[in-house]
């Protein structure tokens, strides 16, 4: 947690988990055992310790959208040093991580106040513990009779003795202090065997450590009263469980006597100190424990299965949550909530980034562009996304020039990308094509050069040129020598082999489905971006030329070509590649492919960009030559 919004997200999630556990515990109060009642607090402890949003899931569907919107609204007018108003709030750790920068805003100050509160409370608990240890260190030795009584109780129930036993005059009842070196502190009067048994059982089950853990968790969320209430209940449940363990070891009248002892402690002061357990934990808590004693029964062993199953479902809900995916905003949504949805839907794939950008262009939607804009443009895009909705300016658009149809919400076109080449820095460059939907006549297509670049776990699209109208008689793009392609060149056996490879990729365009009165009918294309989409369809074109390196004479040969990476064995690629072609020499516009083993659509498509190289094989002068062709020229 490195800013106040991360803390808010973490503490709100923990609060929701706490409320769910409180309701469930209330429902099962008289049905499931004290072990279960105490054990489920471990779920809350884990919830507090696990960063919210882990695995991309959330406990409160839509909660993150509201929080992001509130953050953007608050932070836009501030210049916080710790919070980026346009970034996504991420909880990286369950503890406050303070950066050494001066606070620039009220939210920075609030976070520093929170962090200081954590430190101060930890210090306070630590000092309280040290003060108690100092008082305990001054305690006197118990009488031999008391030590004998203690040995007898421990022996009777097979329990270990604490390292040290002291008598403290001011102690109102017995308690154990110190998880590392436990000391049993006794009051300066006779103590019942059952009280000793209670404290020895705390020692046996390591309840002191649980108490320390709860103290730390209290400190982490010191300003959350719901969590304080829960930890109070958890400590009471710990005592109630210890009562249950005592009662399981007692018989008949002893059980009743135990309740009477507990009742006698109702007026004792309860000073909560970390690293201690005390049977007397306040009048109200004792009342609840007496209620539990009245309900006492030995829970059958078989119930452990049901208890475990209920706890497992609760744990999965609180720790894993449900799908945290926020809905993609509508094209005409504006304002903070829309922007928050856009922020939470930034593209995670290259195809998703291109689809988001293309829909931003077609719908003229700044909120879609805000999802995919590169860092330099993002602030401006996000500011535009918060402005009131305005109808698109149709007449200045290249789509208008070419006669595309505008039908709200978008220009009736679909996109594809050609020549999507790796740029050597982890990103890609390519040409976006916007072609009319089936049944629409236009004078051409709209094109734009773009770069797709990674930014952390997301992808952005940078415009490398303007949207340009490309007037064409026919709209056939692939295979076509008029559309972009890359020439791969190899030289072997005195021959120069040039292979023109063309690849057009697109995602599956969802159709809008509408339910009529009696039947489901299919409408037009859904222009909502799919920021996590993958390329689902590809169209390839290939042509080849072979000439002598010495004379320049062209030759007619049969070639075999396969896609491969920059490094690797071309022979292996020719055997294993999903995309392998046997072709004769000829241009892209000729039908040169004789045999193809390509996979051209579906989720498992492996051709998602232009290949780094081509493996080429040909037979010449009685010998078979295999070589690697590297990209030399990009056309146009």
């Amino acid at each position, binding site marked *: 947690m490195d800013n106040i919004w991360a803390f808010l997200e973490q503490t709100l999630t923990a609060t929701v988990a706490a409320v769910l556990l409180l*309701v469930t515990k209330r429902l099962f109060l008289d049905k*499931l055992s004290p072990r279960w009642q105490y054990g489920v607090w471990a779920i809350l402890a884990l919830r507090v310790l696990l960063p919210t949003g882990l695995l991309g899931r959330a*406990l409160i569907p839509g909660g993150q959208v509201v929080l992001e919107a509130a953050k953007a609204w608050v932070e836009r007018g501030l210049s916080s040093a710790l919070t980026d108003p346009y970034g996504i709030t991420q909880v990286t750790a369950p503890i406050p991580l303070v950066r050494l920068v001066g606070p620039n805003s009220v939210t920075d100050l609030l976070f520093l106040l929170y962090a200081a509160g954590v430190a101060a409370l930890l210090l306070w608990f630590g000092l309280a513990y040290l003060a108690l240890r100092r008082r305990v260190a001054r305690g006197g030795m118990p009488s031999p009779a008391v030590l004998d009584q203690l040995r007898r109780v421990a022996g009777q129930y097979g329990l270990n003795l604490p390292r040290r036993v002291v008598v403290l005059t001011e102690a109102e009842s017995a308690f154990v202090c110190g998880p590392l070196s436990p000391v049993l502190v006794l009051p300066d009067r006779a103590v019942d065997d059952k009280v000793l048994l209670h404290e020895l059982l705390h020692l046996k089950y390591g309840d002191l450590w649980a108490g320390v853990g709860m103290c730390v968790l209290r400190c982490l969320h010191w300003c959350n009263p719901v969590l304080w209430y829960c930890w109070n209940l958890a400590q009471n449940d710990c005592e109630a469980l210890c009562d249950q363990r005592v009662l399981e070891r007692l018989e008949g009248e002893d059980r009743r006597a135990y309740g009477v002892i507990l009742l006698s402690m109702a007026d004792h002061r309860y000073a909560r100190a970390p690293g201690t357990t005390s049977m007397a934990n306040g009048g109200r808590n004792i009342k609840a424990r007496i209620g539990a004693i009245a309900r006492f029964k030995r829970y059958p062993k*078989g119930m452990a*299965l*049901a208890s475990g*199953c209920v706890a497992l*479902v609760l744990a*999965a*809900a609180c720790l894993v949550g449900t799908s945290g995916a926020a809905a993609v905003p509508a094209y005409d949504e504006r304002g903070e909530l829309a922007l928050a949805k856009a922020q939470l839907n930034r593209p995670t794939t290259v195809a998703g980034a291109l689809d988001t950008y293309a829909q931003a262009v077609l719908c003229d939607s700044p909120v879609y562009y805000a999802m995919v804009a590169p860092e330099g443009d993002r602030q401006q895009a996000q500011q535009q996304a918060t402005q009131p909705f305005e109808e698109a300016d149709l007449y200045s658009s290249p789509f208008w020039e070419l006669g595309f149809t505008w039908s709200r919400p978008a220009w009736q076109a679909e996109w594809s990308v050609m020549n999507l080449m790796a740029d050597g820095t982890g990103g890609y460059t390519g040409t976006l094509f916007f072609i009319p939907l089936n049944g629409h006549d236009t004078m051409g297509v709209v094109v734009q050069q773009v770069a797709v670049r990674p930014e952390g776990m997301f992808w952005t699209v940078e415009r490398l040129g303007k949207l340009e109208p490309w007037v064409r008689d026919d709209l056939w793009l692939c295979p076509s020598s008029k559309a972009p392609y890359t020439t791969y060149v190899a030289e072997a056996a005195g021959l120069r082999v040039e292979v023109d490879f063309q690849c057009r990729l697109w995602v599956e365009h969802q159709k809008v489905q509408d339910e009529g009165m009696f039947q489901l009918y299919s409408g037009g294309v859904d222009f909502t971006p799919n920021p996590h989409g993958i390329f689902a369809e590809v169209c390839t074109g290939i042509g080849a030329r072979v000439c002598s390196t010495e004379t320049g004479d062209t030759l007619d040969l049969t070639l075999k070509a396969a896609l491969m990476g920059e490094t690797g064995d071309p022979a292996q690629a020719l055997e294993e590649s999903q995309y392998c072609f046997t072709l004769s020499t000829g241009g892209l516009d000729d039908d040169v492919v004789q045999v193809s083993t390509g996979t051209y659509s579906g989720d498992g498509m492996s051709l998602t960009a232009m290949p780094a190289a081509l493996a080429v094989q040909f037979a010449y002068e009685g010998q078979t030559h295999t070589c690697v062709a590297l990209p030399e020229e990009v056309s146009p």
Partner: protein
Amino acid sequence: MSNAYRGLTKIAWGYVFLHFNLNLGTLNVLPNWAGYLLFFSAIQLLGEDLRDLPLLKPFCILLGTAEVIEWLAVLVTGETVLERFFLLHILVTCINLYFHFQLLTDLILLAEGQGVSGMHLRMCRNVNVVLGTLMALPLPWSDWGVPGLAAVVLMLVLWIIITVILIWQLFQLRKVFP
């Protein structure tokens, strides 16, 4: 006919309503809420013999109400509604797991009180609660491909077998009571 006989008959038929569906369009003519209505009636009949059973009444009402809401939602909109409210759905799932486990535990006690072995009912109870838990967990079955699909099919087959055995066992058990 004794109360026990009538109570067990109602519980057996309750499970028939709960686990089998007959849909006419969006109308389920074997609604789950009818199963809970039968359970509620059976709890009243068996409450005298089984001390802990009446503790299940509030849960029975709650689960029945949830099923009425689901049944109406499916009838009107064609879609379930409870799963949209994640936290409420989790609560109902927890109650559901406990309710059936405890109900069957009580019936096992009833059977064993008459000298009848509760082994088969106990097995049905345990498998039922484990399957119910597995199905409620957010496990990415579809991401696990063929093994995930196989696991889901296996669970469904097991669940159908267990349901049939459970209903058969309950109809058999009632014969012990005059």
